[in-house]
């Protein structure tokens, strides 16, 4: 197996791009990543996306985007794993290069959500859950997370207020990210006063839907110097699955797929959670941030909110998370989110994170969650120079 590095990154801003269609957004990010790597061609493209069929009436994104980007003929396919689609696409790109079958590979995540903001979008997002046994009962994506959070509050004797730190930290960091959808800090008072979306989830527990695209270029580490002198190594890569529905899990309050994929990534990278300098986790809802920290080994079971309450998740804390705003403030273009996380981790490790730069960051971790925890993708990246 070959060692693999990231040699180019690109992203669009996250928000409501009324003037840009799905293919334009995809091209913007792809072209930026190829410019960054000083490339004109690649061997393959893996496109992460969840909702193009539902919202844009468009399947078959591999061909569409390769052709639109002037790369007609190239191997290109779409990868779908709900909100974890982009990190799953990255994983396929990694496998392509690591295996020796492909040399220069692009992983792209793109989502166009604002063309339908009503009940059709709600239904599309819910399709990440079990159609016959969850969705048929009128469940929504936020309701699934609310069911987990309600039980969490009951089981571990914590309150809604204990989750405030996750949203406050994300918005504070979003203020330093020019591509973030929300670039203004929020107060604890605003968090507590925000309206209920699905009890106990309030508006400021939830990440915003948005349009966006992000891309990276991968190549074998021993060829990376031909393109760049700030290549970032992929040190650990893993995908794990759990039951699609919450009701089929042995413990609905435990992200088994986060534990499994994190442990595999730690083993491959030969590191432990103590070695990780920052963690781009999947804070689609504040409850997911807590569960992710617990299952990935940064907090004991039921103690995830402690890290937020004690300030350990800020840029100066023990384990900084969502350092560029996370899903909460950068925004959550679902099938693109996993590559925003990877682009942002690369920025940190290249010392390109501006106001949000973590001093001496050497090892960064990303974790992208599909559905209510059914597919979880964990990666660990390392600064080489």
């Amino acid at each position, binding site marked *: 197996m070959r060692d693999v590095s990231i040699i180019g990154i690109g992203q669009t801003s996250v928000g409501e791009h009324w003037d840009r269609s799905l293919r334009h957004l995809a091209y913007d990010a792809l072209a930026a990543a190829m410019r960054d790597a000083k490339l004109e061609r690649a061997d393959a493209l893996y496109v992460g996306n969840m909702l193009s069929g539902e919202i844009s009436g468009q399947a078959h994104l591999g061909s569409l985007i390769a052709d639109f980007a002037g790369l007609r003929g190239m191997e290109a396919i779409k990868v779908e794993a709900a909100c974890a689609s982009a990190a799953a696409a990255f994983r396929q790109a990694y496998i392509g290069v690591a295996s020796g079958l492909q040399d220069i590979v692009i992983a792209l995540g793109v989502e166009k959500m604002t063309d339908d903001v009503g*009940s*059709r979008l*709600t*239904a599309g997002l*819910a399709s990440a859950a*079990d159609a*016959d*046994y*969850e*969705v*048929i*009962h*009128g*469940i*929504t994506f*936020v*309701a699934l997370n*609310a*069911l*987990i959070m*309600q*039980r969490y509050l*009951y089981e571990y004797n914590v309150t809604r207020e204990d989750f405030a730190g996750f949203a406050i930290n994300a918005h504070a960091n979003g203020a330093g990210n020019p591509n973030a959808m929300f670039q203004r800090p929020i107060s604890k008072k605003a968090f507590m006063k925000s309206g*209920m*979306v*699905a*009890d*106990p*989830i309030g508006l400021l527990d939830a990440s915003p839907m948005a349009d966006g695209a992000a891309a990276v270029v991968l190549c074998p580490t021993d060829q990376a110097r031909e393109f760049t002198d700030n290549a970032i190594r992929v040190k650990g890569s893993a995908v794990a699955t759990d*039951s699609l*529905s*919450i*009701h*089929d899990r042995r413990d*609905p309050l435990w992200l088994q797929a986060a534990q499994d994929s994190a442990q595999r990534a730690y083993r491959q990278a030969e590191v432990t959670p103590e070695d990780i300098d920052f963690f781009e986790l999947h804070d689609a809802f504040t409850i997911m941030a807590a569960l992710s920290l617990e299952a990935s080994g940064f907090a004991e079971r039921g103690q995830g909110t402690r890290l937020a309450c004690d300030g350990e998740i800020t840029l100066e804390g023990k384990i900084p998370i969502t350092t560029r705003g996370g899903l909460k403030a950068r925004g959550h273009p679902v099938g693109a989110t996993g590559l925003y996380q990877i682009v942002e981790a690369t920025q940190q490790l290249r010392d390109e994170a501006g106001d949000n730069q973590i001093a001496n960051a050497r090892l960064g971790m990303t974790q992208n969650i599909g559905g209510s925890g059914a597919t979880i993708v964990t990666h660990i990246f390392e600064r080489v120079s």
Partner: protein
Amino acid sequence: MTIEIARHWRLKSQRYQLVGEVCPKCSNKMFPPRDVCPECADDSAQPDFKFSGRGEVYSHTTVHNPPDGYQEMAPYTVALVKLEEGPLITAQLTDVANDAVKIGLPVEMVTRKLSTQGDEGLIVYGYKFRPQLATA
């Protein structure tokens, strides 16, 4: 439309009678039914098992922004119900005020309209749960 009806018809014994399965090897009781037991991976034919329909609320929330087909019921409460035989099941609660629902509330299965689907207004029926009557 025909396919949509088949999709719901196929599930009628689950939707109307809460029929799951019991694993012949490890006695694990499953709802919904599966081809392979998730506990012991046994894939031999599994006998039907009809759940009693009694259980308690494990978790709950209220949906204010429903998907297509559910608007007329909103706001409604969805719950994870812990069946007395073991499994958790996802369902709506009915015959109870949204803010009167608490974790641990004893509930029982009833058959109700789940949603109105498609342009033809196909009505899908199935299980919901209501507070157990005192005599139950």
